[in-house]
């Protein structure tokens, strides 16, 4: 069964690049759903189940940190793995998102190989 992946990023360009990178990394069959900020992601997750979430950090309305905090308190979705894809890959941010439950971080810019390396163990 194909995996279903939620991409959360306020940039439509970045959502398309991540989608293309997933295809290039070998996951041609995964189904992609998108949200443009943390709140939109939470709304979507209330009605749609996904296997993995790839989320930006720096977003308007609700950022990736607050999204992780709120997700951790929602039993129905708290166990869905999250990987952060961010320009904000500073050491203490990487540590903070780990504490909030993120399984890893990918720094922008990235290559399809880096996506494959980080996501591979989760598939």
């Amino acid at each position, binding site marked *: 069964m194909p995996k279903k992946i939620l991409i959360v990023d*306020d*940039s*439509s*360009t*970045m959502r*398309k*690049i991540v989608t*293309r990178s997933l295809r290039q990394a070998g996951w041609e069959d995964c189904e992609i759903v998108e949200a443009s900020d943390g709140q939109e992601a939470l709304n979507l997750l209330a009605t749609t189940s996904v296997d993995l979430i790839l989320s930006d950090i*720096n*977003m*308007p309305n609700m950022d990736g940190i607050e999204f992780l905090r709120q997700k951790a308190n929602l039993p129905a979705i708290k166990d869905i793995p999250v990987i952060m894809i*961010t*320009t*904000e*890959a*500073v*050491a*203490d*941010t990487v540590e903070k998102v780990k504490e909030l439950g993120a399984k890893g971080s990918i*720094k*922008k*810019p*990235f*290559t399809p190989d880096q996506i494959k390396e980080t996501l591979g163990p989760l598939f």
Partner: protein
Amino acid sequence: MDLHDNIITNTKDVFSSMLGMEVTPQEPVAAGMTHLKSISGIIGLAGSVKGMLAVHAPEKTALAITSGFLGMAVEEINEDVQDAIGELANMLAGGVKLTLTENSSEIKLSVPSVIFGDTYNVSAPAKAMAFIIPFTIEGGLFYVEFHLIKEGLGK
């Protein structure tokens, strides 16, 4: 690594890894240039370091960059182009932030603002260290502008 080198390295990295394009840096020029029929993505920096990073691209270059990001031909300035130039500025500002601090709480990045028009100028604050690095790609020329206001600098 100084800021000039950092911006050059980051710009090369973004273009090679995400657009499959080579960029060639040119000699830096003074801030305050006039942009004609261009689009600019701007990220503000706040906290222990204040300033901004901007990417200025003439329309033709902006279309080439957006086409590279999306993997498809983009032929008119639209929301995709605005978003792509804003995201490019965002990635470059993230690289600068990594150079300036190891502690993310010290420096905050804004979400991108995008401006475009037939003629406009971007002015640097009087106390800022400011420079522009021009780059060439196959589709044309674009500019990365950086302003930095830090205690003890520019006074």
